[in-house]
């Protein structure tokens, strides 16, 4: 994704000059951001004229519509990983070569951010018509850079697209993206200037080391990350079928006190609820402090946890925390949680599995409690919190519960368009998920710490490693 983003265009995107904003979306291939009509159910986009594919042919609205059609409602035999994000779309069409119209089933605030999905690259209709899978193995876009080569498992190269429609961009003549799986290689590569930048994130200790050694030759940008680890109890396993026990697990955790220390060794930082902390829909600290797991008085919170465990007959229980074999931040967060739970008398061990067996265990309900994750691109709280819905609605929830009340609360929120009402409904939903039923327990949100050589200019950090990665606005001061 990071590597191929510079080759493609999208319809709309997070503002590359202000990517940390969760509400600032601008046109890429369209000319102006549309005002919805038909009571918020119709969005009409005018497409730029004069845009060329890298093969020199003109890009039209028909290409945009065909690409979106495959995402929203793919043809038979093709699956779309993001189809579920567009349940609100009734149909889309391109009435002429410069217009694309989306017709929604209902008005919702979730649509526009979903449309800014950084994965939603625009492909050429002519190619899609011949072979909808062609793009799985080939690259041909209309983005700021043209594809110049790929060495399997090693590197990808791009050269400047002189016909790029954002005049003056891109500033670089080209780029080489190097694949380096090991973190120490990535750190050393920046240290020795073998690479100018690493776009995902590095642990704080590595960044501290780079800053100490390189001084003003290194620059660092930091941001909350639209990803987080969630504790999911298996509701079909006793005693986690009892909401009191699940609530006790939340009450035992002192995130307010421990997050600053944890953030020194792991890529986590901000204490938050189910909504990304920078979003207008996120809970404020006073709002969070009313929810189990966020009480300001940890002694009172743990006393309540012990009381609930005793009441449920689950004092000093032993259970296994299923975890994924990923260092940052999974293992650090899991060890911290185990320590926190020990403070209310729970004896917890960790079972770490590689990704394949980890998912197999989740799908087979072969776990007591798991450390799951939720990682999204564009901040779109109304869709991002879908992760907390039952498995029958959101396949990637492994809590093994059914809860019609929760689904109804979610649907009411999704169909509401008044921002104030949406926020109020989100608070109710959050309290229900994290406190009343404690289907999930939040841990501190992940944190992006991106170090780079200070001669790299123009790039701005965003809440996702998928956003603002086309490199069009990057330039070098050297």
């Amino acid at each position: 994704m990071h590597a191929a983003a510079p080759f493609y265009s999208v319809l709309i995107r997070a503002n590359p000059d202000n990517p940390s904003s969760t509400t600032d979306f601008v046109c890429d291939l369209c000319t102006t951001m549309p005002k919805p009509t038909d009571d918020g159910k119709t969005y009409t986009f005018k497409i730029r004229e004069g845009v060329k594919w890298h093969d020199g042919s003109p890009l039209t609205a028909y290409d945009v519509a065909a690409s979106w059609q495959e995402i929203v409602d793919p043809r038979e035999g093709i699956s779309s990983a993001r189809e579920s994000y567009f349940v609100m779309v009734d149909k889309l069409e391109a009435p002429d070569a410069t217009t694309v119209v989306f017709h929604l089933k209902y008005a919702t605030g979730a649509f526009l951010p979903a449309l800014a999905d950084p994965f939603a690259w625009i492909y050429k209709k002519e190619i899609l018509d011949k072979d909808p899978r062609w793009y799985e193995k080939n690259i041909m876009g209309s983005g700021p850079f043209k594809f110049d080569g790929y060495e399997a498992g090693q590197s990808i190269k791009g050269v400047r697209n002189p016909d790029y429609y954002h005049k003056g961009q891109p500033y670089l003549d080209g780029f080489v993206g190097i694949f380096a799986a090991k973190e120490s290689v990535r750190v050393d590569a920046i240290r020795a200037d073998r690479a100018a930048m690493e776009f995902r994130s590095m642990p704080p200790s590595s960044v501290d080391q780079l800053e100490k050694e390189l001084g003003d030759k290194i620059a660092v940008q930091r941001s909350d990350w639209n990803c987080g680890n969630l504790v999911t109890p298996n509701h079909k396993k006793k005693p986690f079928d009892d909401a009191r026990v699940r609530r006790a697990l939340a009450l035992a955790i002192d995130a307010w006190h421990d997050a600053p220390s944890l953030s020194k060794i792991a890529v986590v930082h901000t204490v938050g609820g189910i909504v990304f902390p920078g979003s207008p829909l996120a809970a404020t600290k006073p709002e969070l402090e009313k929810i189990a797991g966020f009480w300001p008085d940890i002694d009172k919170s743990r006393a309540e946890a012990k009381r609930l465990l005793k009441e449920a007959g689950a004092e000093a229980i032993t259970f296994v925390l299923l975890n994924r074999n990923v260092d940052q931040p999974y293992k650090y967060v899991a060890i911290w949680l185990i320590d926190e739970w020990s403070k209310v008398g729970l004896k917890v061990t960790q079972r770490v599995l590689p990704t394949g067996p980890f998912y197999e265990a989740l799908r087979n309900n072969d776990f007591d409690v798991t450390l799951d994750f939720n990682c999204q691109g564009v901040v779109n709280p109304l869709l991002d919190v879908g992760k907390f819905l039952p498995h029958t609605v959101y396949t990637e929830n492994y809590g093994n519960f059914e809860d019609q009340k929760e689904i109804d609360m979610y649907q009411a929120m999704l169909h509401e368009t008044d921002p104030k009402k949406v926020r109020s409904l989100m608070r109710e939903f959050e309290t229900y998920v994290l406190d009343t039923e404690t289907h999930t327990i939040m841990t501190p949100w992940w944190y992006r710490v991106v170090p780079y050589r200070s001669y790299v200019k123009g790039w701005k950090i965003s809440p996702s490693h998928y956003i603002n990665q086309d490199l069009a606005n990057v330039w070098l001061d050297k």
Partner: protein
Amino acid sequence: MYRYIVHRLLLAVPTLAGAAALVFVLMRLIPGDICVVRLASGGGTFDPHSVTLCHAELGLDRPMIVQFLNFVFGFFRLDFGMSMWTGKPVAYEIAARLPISIEVALLATVVAIAFAIPLGTISALKQNSWIDVVVRTVAIAGIATPSFWLGIVVLLVILDVTNFIYGAPWMPPIDYVPLWQDPIRNLSMVFWPAVTVGYRYSAVTMRMTRSAMLEVLREDYIRTARAKGLLDRIVINRHALKNALLPVVTLIGIEFAFLIGGLVVTEQVFNLNGIGRLFVLSVQNQDYTLTQALVMVVVTVFVLTNLLVDVLYAWLDPRIRFG
């Protein structure tokens, strides 16, 4: 000789078929589903229909026996199929990495032979002298030191030393360029892992050379050669060393074959895009076709190396005849 080679090559067929059956079964015993990993590990959503489509696309909906026979017959036709993860031909994925692994293995073997045989011989000839003690200490340290750890230390030392001398740290390149395109850049990348791995390799070979030489030097024919008044140089080089090299050659063959697919962590430390790293990735991704093909490539390398070693035996020891 030719009959012997053909006979050995024919014997390799059941060996390869056995390896194929083993890797096919073992891969399927690992819990998990590549389609689920592919669809979910990035945090995306998917439905059961997507998994079904994915299974059909990868041929995982066919009966096991059909999958196995496709794999075995494909291998003997040198058609490894497509990588389940990247969708590219397996042959392409392996071909992109094999030259790097072969280059490191060859260079490490050169390092090993260049140091191990002279030092092992001197160590045996000067048994229990200070030279012997030094060589044995270096050899034991080499065996005891994990290559990947040594690699990390080497890298840190390079960074710190160059930073100290030039005021800016230097590290070997992290993107591979073939030898014929840019020899200096290529060697400055491959040299360090080759030395790192070659140290352990030479340590093992050194120990073997020393003990084999000590054994041969006590043989009657060596005493006879000396009694005939032959020069020490001729006794050692022509009579002792040549015979002592038989187990050493075997060891070098095994180690070389191991290096082709076994440099898992060292490749990661130096960001080498080799077969070892691909191996780990393919197992993690549960990419059956790629893992199966990689195992078969490594088994083939072992079979061919052993055959080469056996042929070398005949050159080293004319008493050995192949029936």
